[in-house]
């Protein structure tokens, strides 16, 4: 409920109460005044006639009293007049009906008992009437005004009582009129005052209060520092000033609160950025194929990305606390440590540090490391941070490429040399053969000529191999759709004689139903014969040579050609070299060192792979995987 309504609710009843009281009092007062006037008039008339009444009462006759009564009634325009004796008996009455009655009612008794006039308002025939009873005394000459000495009438004798009834109708009408006018005036005055009061309240109390309320509302919405006009120096003004002070203080304190909010927001932003940065690092670290690491200043791992397990076999938590150089392969550890010491003493970012490390399962892994020192806040060395990249495969590929390039170069060289050698060799061979045929058996020159012939033929074979090798490098062998088993059988027929003389058992394990491959039959034979020859050479005391074919289970889309022996096996350190041209372990004159390199070239040029398993003293197994579909590079079939 609004304040104004509350005020009105308070003031309106109050005003009405006051108004009512005032009107009531005024009406009473007015009534008394008007009545007093009527009374005085009546008394005055009675008083004027008091001598006559006194004389008439002395006679005690109605005839003397009635004219006086009639005259009195007319003088005051009364309703009735009567004269009573001391007992209440009506001596005379203007109303004939009342004649000779004796009034014994309480009022009359009181009137008769009173020495002073008595006034009473009574109703006569439904009209209000003021009844005045005035005692009539025996007139004493010295006593002029009995009324004034009425209080002391010890010497006087009461003759009777005059009753005078004056109608009040007119008086009451007057009184009502006056009262109406007064009421109207009162209401006007009170209404005006109320209006003024309301306006005053609205102006002096409500307006500042509303201003203050709207000010508070604004401040509560954040308009700190707002000042409301204070106005008068009353309680409301003080309240307003106090509010202004609070608002100003609020502004001061809220400024710092704003900064706090801003700082909190800034901190949130920074935290979010940090989180994002962390997440980004984590993702990079997890998704990178490289092993991201951190060590302490001593070189003990403090962090490794999960990739470490894929590279080195150890989980990051297994690496934690271990020295990075724990994993260097033992044979190179000394050299690598020296290089590490040099890098670490440089105290700068480094890259391209290559090291061989031992995988958890024992094999060798080549890592390329980049990194740099990590400094703490005061610039002291806190550790190292960097990246290890597994370049084992890359190294293998590089090695294979180098090998391939070497082969190619040798092939070209061999082709050129072979061409130049063939000419003189042809002459030597021709002369040697014809000369040898010209001498008889047992002649002194027969043996040397035969020897020249034989050695020339050896040279011829060597050159032929070289030429085949160089041609295979150029992928110029005629490729046909070929049944691998048929080609292998053809090759085996050429070595059967040799296996027999060397006490080697030949075992065939040819799978049936193999898909055809696109290959040169001659090259398949070269592969088989070269591998078989090596195997036979590896079994000087005899053994078993197993040649097998199969659909590869390891590599879908490939067929396998396997040549296994039970010979000496190939020592580890030689395994990488056996495919190099001119590498041979055979005694001088027995091998050219081109056999396996030729096999390598042929297989490689057809997109195939050679796998070697070998155990020293137990034997070796060459597995050649050849793709069933020709690789795009070997599309020289029609040439």
């Amino acid at each position, binding site marked *: 409920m609004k304040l104004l309504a509350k005020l009105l609710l308070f003031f309106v009843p109050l005003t009405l109460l006051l108004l009512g009281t005032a009107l009531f009092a005024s009406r009473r007062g007015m009534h008394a005044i008007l009545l007093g006037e009527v009374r005085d008039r009546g008394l005055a008339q009675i008083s004027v006639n008091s001598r006559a009444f006194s004389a008439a009462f002395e006679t005690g006759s109605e005839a003397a009293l009635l004219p006086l009564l009639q005259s009195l009634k007319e003088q005051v325009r009364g309703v009735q007049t009567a004269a009573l004796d001391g007992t209440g008996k009506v001596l005379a009455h203007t109303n004939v009906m009342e004649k000779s009655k004796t009034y014994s009612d309480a009022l009359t008794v009181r009137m008769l008992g009173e020495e002073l006039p008595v006034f009473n308002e009574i109703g006569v025939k439904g009209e209000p009437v003021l009844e005045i009873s005035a005692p009539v005394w025996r007139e004493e000459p010295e006593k002029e005004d009995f009324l004034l000495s009425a209080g002391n009438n010890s010497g006087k004798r009461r003759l009777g009582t005059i009753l005078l009834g004056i109608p009040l109708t007119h008086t009451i009408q007057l009184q009502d009129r006056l009262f109406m006018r007064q009421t109207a005036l009162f209401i006007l005055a009170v209404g005006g005052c109320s209006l003024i009061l309301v306006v005053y309240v609205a102006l002096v109390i409500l307006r500042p209060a509303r201003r203050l309320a709207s000010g508070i509302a604004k401040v509560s919405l954040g308009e700190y520092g707002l000042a409301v006009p204070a106005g008068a120096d009353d309680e409301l003004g003080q309240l307003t000033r106090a509010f202004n002070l609070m608002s100003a203080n609020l502004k001061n304190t809220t400024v710092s609160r704003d900064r706090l909010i801003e700082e909190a927001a800034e901190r949130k932003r920074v935290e979010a950025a940090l989180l994002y940065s962390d997440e980004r690092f984590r993702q990079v670290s997890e998704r990178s194929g490289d092993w991201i690491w951190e060590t302490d200043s001593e070189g003990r791992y403090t962090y490794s990305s999960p990739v470490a397990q894929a590279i080195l076999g150890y989980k990051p938590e297994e690496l934690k606390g271990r020295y990075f150089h724990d994993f260097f392969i033992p044979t190179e550890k000394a050299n690598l440590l020296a290089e590490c010491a040099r890098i670490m003493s440089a105290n700068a970012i480094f890259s391209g540090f290559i090291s061989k490390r031992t995988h958890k399962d024992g094999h060798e892994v080549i890592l390329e490391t980049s990194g740099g020192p990590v400094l703490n806040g005061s610039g002291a060395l806190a550790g190292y941070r960097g990246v290890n990249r597994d370049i084992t495969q890359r190294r293998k590929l590089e090695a294979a490429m180098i090998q391939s390039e070497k082969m190619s170069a040798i092939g070209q060289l061999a082709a050129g040399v*072979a*061409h*130049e050698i*063939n*000419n*003189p*060799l*042809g*002459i*030597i*061979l*021709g*002369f040697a*053969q*014809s000369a040898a*045929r010209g001498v008889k058996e047992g002649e002194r020159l027969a043996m040397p000529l035969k020897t020249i012939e034989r050695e*020339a033929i050896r*040279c*011829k074979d060597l*050159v*032929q191999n070289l*030429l*085949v090798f160089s*041609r295979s490098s150029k992928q*110029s*062998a*005629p490729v046909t759709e070929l049944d691998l088993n048929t080609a292998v059988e053809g090759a085996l027929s050429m070595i059967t004689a040799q296996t027999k003389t060397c006490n080697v058992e030949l075992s065939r394990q040819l799978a049936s139903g193999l898909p055809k491959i696109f290959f040169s039959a*001659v090259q398949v034979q070269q592969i088989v014969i070269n591998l078989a020859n090596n195997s036979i050479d590896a079994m000087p005391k005899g053994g078993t040579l197993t040649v097998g074919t199969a659909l590869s289970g390891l590599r879908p889309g490939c067929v396998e050609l396997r040549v296994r022996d039970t010979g000496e096996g190939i020592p580890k350190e030689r395994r990488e070299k056996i495919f190099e041209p001119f590498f041979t372990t055979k005694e001088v004159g027995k091998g050219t060192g081109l056999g396996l390199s030729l096999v390598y070239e042929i297989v490689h040029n057809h997109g195939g792979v050679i796998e070697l398993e070998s155990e020293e003293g137990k034997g070796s197994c060459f597995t050649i995987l050849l793709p069933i579909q020709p690789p795009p590079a070997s599309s020289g079939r029609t*040439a």
Partner: protein
Amino acid sequence: MTSGAGRNILVVDDEHGYHDLFRFVLEPLGFTVLSAYEGTAGVARFHERDYSAVFLDVHMPGMTGLEALKTIRQAKPSQRVIIMSSGSDPRQVLEKAAVDLGAADCIFKPFELDQILKNVENIP
């Protein structure tokens, strides 16, 4: 024993040793071995007389063996010509070209004695 009496053999090769070899092998058999050391000279020598067989080296300065073969076969389609090469020919490209041009045989150095004899024996 092959008799080469009255029959001529032309050897065209820039390698002198082969001329010596052919003479050493064939002259005892009665053949007359004539020599030319490059293609153009070989063609000129070819026109001088009739030959039972002409041995043409492929790799020669100037006119190559195959060009000489072509010229000779055009001049005398029935002429027996043997192509010699110091390379090898696993895809038979040279051999095929030579046979297409009418060569009787294609032999590769270092050839053996019998490969010469086979090509001069039993020739009318």
